[in-house]
């Protein structure tokens, strides 16, 4: 996908006889197309490739490495400067209840991926509880409860509760009293122009004081990714991102733009509908695969 397209662009450069201005410009054009087709924000693509071109042509190459190796190094550095260098774990303090508030646009995959995350953390030995604080979507409680039951994770909620802030507070209080280590709070979908819902999100965060706010981003999200992520971050500071639905044909460039816009690292990626389909995001592995 994004990986193989960038890989091909870089391989083409590596096979070229001379790494001159023409070859670099061609690489940059190929990179631009690959990044744009992967849904990376248009402005980000232009900035990124402009920097890659300048650095590739103007910087002095260290002795002992060819100019072509140097160009690959530049691409690698520019991409990892956005995605980060290492795997960033979820913010977790042992010996207390850690509260994670999960937010995102309608249909992005919050409810499903909360249970996936709960299952992963349970395997790591933590006690888990999920809170159904989406009081708007029909069947939201049932959906979360059914998924949680299958993963053998406790689920707290009441399908008749209309007040999402109350639902969040009650759920968090319940698990805190049980000394549950990881509390995952599911919320209703919302987008930046639903001002009332954005305010509601702020009120939920104020009420439960989460240790980390996780933004769930749909892997198919296009150019709106940075604007939406920025708006969420401005309303409630986002601590991390989960990118979902990367098992389809989407390349997740929107998520890259969301990271660039918020500075929040991607910590997990969703790769399917089943509860086991969640992996830790490894940025260097991702970029390494990109560049072959």
């Amino acid at each position: 996908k994004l990986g193989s397209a960038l890989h091909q662009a870089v391989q083409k450069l590596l096979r070229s006889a001379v790494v001159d201005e023409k070859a670099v410009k061609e690489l940059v054009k190929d990179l631009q197309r690959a990044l744009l087709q992967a849904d990376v924000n248009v402005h980000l693509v232009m900035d990124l490739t402009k920097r890659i071109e300048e650095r590739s042509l103007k910087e002095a190459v260290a002795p002992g490495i060819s100019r072509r190796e140097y160009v690959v190094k530049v691409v690698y550095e520019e991409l990892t400067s956005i995605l980060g260098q290492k795997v960033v774990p979820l913010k977790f303090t042992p010996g207390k209840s850690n509260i994670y508030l999960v937010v995102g646009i309608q249909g992005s995959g919050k409810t499903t991926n909360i249970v996936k995350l709960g299952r992963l953390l349970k395997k790591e030995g933590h006690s888990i509880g999920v809170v159904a604080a989406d009081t708007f979507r029909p069947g939201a409680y049932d959906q979360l409860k059914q998924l949680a039951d299958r993963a053998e994770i406790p689920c707290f909620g009441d399908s008749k509760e209309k007040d999402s802030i109350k639902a969040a507070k009650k759920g968090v209080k319940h698990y805190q009293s049980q000394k549950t280590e990881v509390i995952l709070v599911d919320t209703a979908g919302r987008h930046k122009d639903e001002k009332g819902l954005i305010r509601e999100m702020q009120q939920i965060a104020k009420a439960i004081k989460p240790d980390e706010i996780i933004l769930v981003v749909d892997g198919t999200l296009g150019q709106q990714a940075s604007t939406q992520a920025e708006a969420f971050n401005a309303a409630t500071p986002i601590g991390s991102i989960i990118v979902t639905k990367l098992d389809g044909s989407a390349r997740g460039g929107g998520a890259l733009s969301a990271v660039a816009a918020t500075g929040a690292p991607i910590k997990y990626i969703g790769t399917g509908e089943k509860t086991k389909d969640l992996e830790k995001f490894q940025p260097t592995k991702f970029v390494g695969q990109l560049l072959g």
Partner: protein
Amino acid sequence: KEISEKNLDEAFSDLQMALLANDVAYEAAERINHRVKETLEGVQIGRLQSKKDAIREALYDAILDALTPDSPVNLFELLEQRKKANEPLIIMFLGVNGTGKTTTIAKITHMLQKRGYTVVLACADTFRAGSAEQIQIHADRLKVRVLSRPYGSDPASVAFDAINHARARGVNVVLIDTAGRMQTDKNLMAELQKIHRVAEPDLVVFVGDALAGNDAIEQAKTFNEKIGIDAAVLTKVDADAKGGAALSIAIATGKPIIFVGVGQKYSDIESFNPEWFTEKIAP
């Protein structure tokens, strides 16, 4: 002087970027630009500025043309036809996960009821957690019957049940909800083909998310190739969507977008307006 290929290429680059920034898929933007180039090649135009205006104008027309269906789908004509023939109109909804299929079905039910038609729903999503509960709540609110079967059942048989029910009771419309699926999943696409074979719907409607970027073209293209779609609904247009996904879907399938979702309430559905979208998408 004449517009040469080289002059066009330079002017097109900015306009191409503007299309991409408005969420038009890369391939769709390229195809639209190609059409415009064909329209303008050899045409006599004055100074460079009016050249750019000529391109912009041609681009506007090309976008509007792509968004205006050659063979429109008139839902209400179809409804009347089927009603006169004493047959239910069968509509099947498909698309990838989370695009708004179930909610769109509820909105269309509401719209049809306001026009005096009777509706029955088929919950042919027998896979996803909470799918039956979700559509049941909509059905209760809208006071329509929904047919469903236990989780894990064959989805095609749910569609079959609903169609038989509609025929037996003289219900005007059957709306079939299916589970979201990645169009790249061979097994799930085979399952969808089976539902299609059994239900023999009058209309297959692709439900696409207006916030999707380049994937919109992949989704629409594959669902159209593997199942065949008759029309599309674009959802979440209220989420400040730039509208480019509409162009991607239109170019990928040549099929009309009939409705747009503009919110989460039953009333948040509107007819697709090609001019409005062209204004939004065109640079």
